[in-house]
């Protein structure tokens, strides 16, 4: 007995192979994950968003005049696509949209070949939305162009997290653009619903705690595994929506992603009973909280029409912040130099 315990202890001290360090992103202009952004870069993007938003459109369009940016979309999108397109065009860039349903992707062309083709056509940066987690990493590895992740599978949606941050700051820390590790100290953000399939949830839960916010994830076990709490620091799981609301200054509602449920059966009546944001719940438990939603909203499912259109709702404001943030991100894509790949 003693001998085996001793052996086990010795063995735990054995040298193990090292985990290789990430070598992404290769290109200093890329935005693949919020994890790649340090606080200085986030502050820079927030400041540039404001400057660009206020700039005269006739001088703003000289910034990326005639530069070529491709939008490569493997999934449908209203907000993100239009917002990136308007942002790039506001800076004077030429944009072209390639979507999976009207291109050679339908004929079986791989992401690698599509990316190389776009580069050969003169694209200087690619904005990609893809239904597979990690696709932007593959695209960057193959093209070495600046790649902007506009949502990859169930993984990340970094510009959404940045525009959400800008929305939160505008309400809770007006005027603040230079962020630090305690900018959002004392702020609790609850993200509610289909966390498992949500790239918006992942980007926000990995970004906001780095500025001092507490993130509560809330939803039923099939849509929110317990292991989500281990995704990073500052994240907790709370199954009781009302208990979570009670602690929150910000509540982000998410759509149930029917297209990613992969056979999972959900009782929607039960879901509404437990997790729908109603006027009653809001006024009882979080009468001053900011209500956010990345869209598209499904009125009457995760949120009532009254709340979506109500005075606490920042949903359309988020969309407006999106254009400003994406101008800053697109500008950085084509002007960033010399920044080191994350160690």
């Amino acid at each position, binding site marked *: 007995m003693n001998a085996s315990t001793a052996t*086990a202890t010795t*063995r*735990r001290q*054995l*040298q*193990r*192979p090292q*985990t*290789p360090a*990430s070598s*992404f992103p290769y290109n200093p202009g890329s935005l693949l994950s919020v994890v790649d952004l340090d606080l200085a870069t986030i502050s820079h993007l927030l400041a540039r968003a404001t400057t660009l938003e206020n700039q005269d459109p006739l001088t703003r369009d000289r910034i990326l005049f005639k530069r070529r940016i491709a939008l490569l979309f493997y999934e449908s999108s209203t907000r993100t696509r239009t917002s990136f397109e308007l942002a790039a065009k506001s800076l004077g860039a030429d944009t072209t949209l390639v979507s999976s349903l009207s291109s050679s992707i339908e004929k079986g062309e*791989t*992401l*690698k070949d599509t990316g190389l083709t776009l580069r050969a056509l003169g694209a200087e940066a690619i904005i990609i939305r*893809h239904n*597979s*987690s*990690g*696709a932007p*990493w*593959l695209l960057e590895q*193959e093209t070495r162009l600046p790649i902007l992740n506009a949502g*990859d*599978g*169930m*993984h*990340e949606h970094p510009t959404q997290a940045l525009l959400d941050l800008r929305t939160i700051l505008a309400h809770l820390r007006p005027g603040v653009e230079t962020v630090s590790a305690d900018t959002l100290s004392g702020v609790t953000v609850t993200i509610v619903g289909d966390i*498992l399939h949500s*790239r918006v949830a*992942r980007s926000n839960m*990995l970004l906001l705690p780095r500025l001092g916010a507490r993130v509560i994830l809330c939803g039923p076990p099939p849509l929110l*595994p317990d*292991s*989500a709490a*281990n*995704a*990073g620091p500052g994240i907790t799981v709370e199954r009781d929506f009302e208990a979570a609301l009670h602690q929150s200054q910000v509540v982000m509602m998410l759509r149930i992603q029917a297209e990613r449920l*992969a*056979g999972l059966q959900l009782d929607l009546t039960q879901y509404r009973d437990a997790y729908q944001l109603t006027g009653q719940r809001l006024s009882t438990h979080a009468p001053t909280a900011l209500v956010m939603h990345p869209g598209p909203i499904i009125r009457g499912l995760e949120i009532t029409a009254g709340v979506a259109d109500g005075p606490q709702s920042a949903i359309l404001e988020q969309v407006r912040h999106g254009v400003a943030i994406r101008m800053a991100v697109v500008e950085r894509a084509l002007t960033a130099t010399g920044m080191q790949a994350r160690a």
Partner: protein
Amino acid sequence: MSTLLIHNGHLIDPAAGVDSTKDILLKDGRVAEIAAPGKIKTGNGAGSNAEILDATGLTVAPGLIDIHVHLREPGQAHKETIATGTAAAAAGGFTAVAAMPNTNPVNDSPEITRWMLSPDRGASVRVYPIGAATRGSKGEQINDFAALKAAGAVAVTDDGHPILKDSIMRETLAAAARVGLSVIQHAEDTRMSQGASMNAGPIAFKLGLRGMPPEAESGLVERDIRLVTELKDSRVHLHVAHTSTAAAIAAVRQARRNGLRVTCEVAPHHFLLTEEHVGQYNTNAKMNPPLRSAADRDAMIEAILDGIVDAIATDHAPHATHEKEVEFEHAPNGITGLETALGLCLHWLHKEWKLPLGRVLSLLSAQPAALLSLKGRGTLAVGSFADVVVFDPKAEWTYHAKETRSKAHNTPFDGWTMQGKVRWTISEGRIAYAAPQ
């Protein structure tokens, strides 16, 4: 047939209990004589006209045996052929490999088994086909095991398509036992791993990938052990392929305590790497079973050091480069392993973790040979097949995937430090690989 004299090497033959400097004479494909250095006469004695390989300072051991490889023929020659796969095997010190039946078509017939064994395939080392347990590996209809065995199959399995139905698995175990074949199970309850591309847990969650729970493996191992218990037939042999979870190892350990004939293999990547190596969607870290948690990886190390593991097997799974250069969830499972197994085992198991060299070599030769009853293999006792690996145990070198003899480059060990460099691999008395000098 040529005669070879391996002169003055340090012979380590765990099965025969030899660990000293010897001369070995190989004649007509067999080990003819073993004696103290200089004692075998090369003039006009038994060793006349022998080609002499000077093994001074080198280790001489039974050729390595990998009981889990994918040679991709018939049907997927763009990934690998029997010729290229066995050339890689020879370069890695292997003299026998057992080929999984998930070819196209599936190897579920004596005809395909014989086709794989034909000299036309150009194999550099001995190939042992493993037959499919069920027709087309669909898990419904049991194949004719006696006919497969007669054609040369050494075991049966449905490998990547594990047999889920209790009744079919029970029948497979019983029928294989009647003809003296082992049943190898890729333990994965595929009902629990739909759409999954890595280990379930916080990292899969963070990467937005669907996860394979460890229970999908251990649950099926436990089910299979229950079936073996119920059969109450000592001839039944269940072999658990590429064990990757602590819970599956625990189940095997318990089965052995209960006196059952249940064995297991572990692949180098499962005792060296963890799910962290997926990094930023590295498709060369995608395989099935997936890389697991650090606790599972440590359980594999402990099980090897404790002697619970019966064999190191690589699960050599070559894929064309373009097949791996895709979105992570669309990339095929598997990595190559034949050229890196010895170097990794010597570096980590022996040098770092102090497992005696004889035990490392036994896990790579004597034990896998015994496990699949490969007669005359896994030892260099006089009369055995002249399957030999000669390597420099002190040589440290760096593996470069681009220099591989396999058709495929899909390995997470590119650029890794290896210990022990193969000088010669001899298959049935013929030099199958000689290191470039």
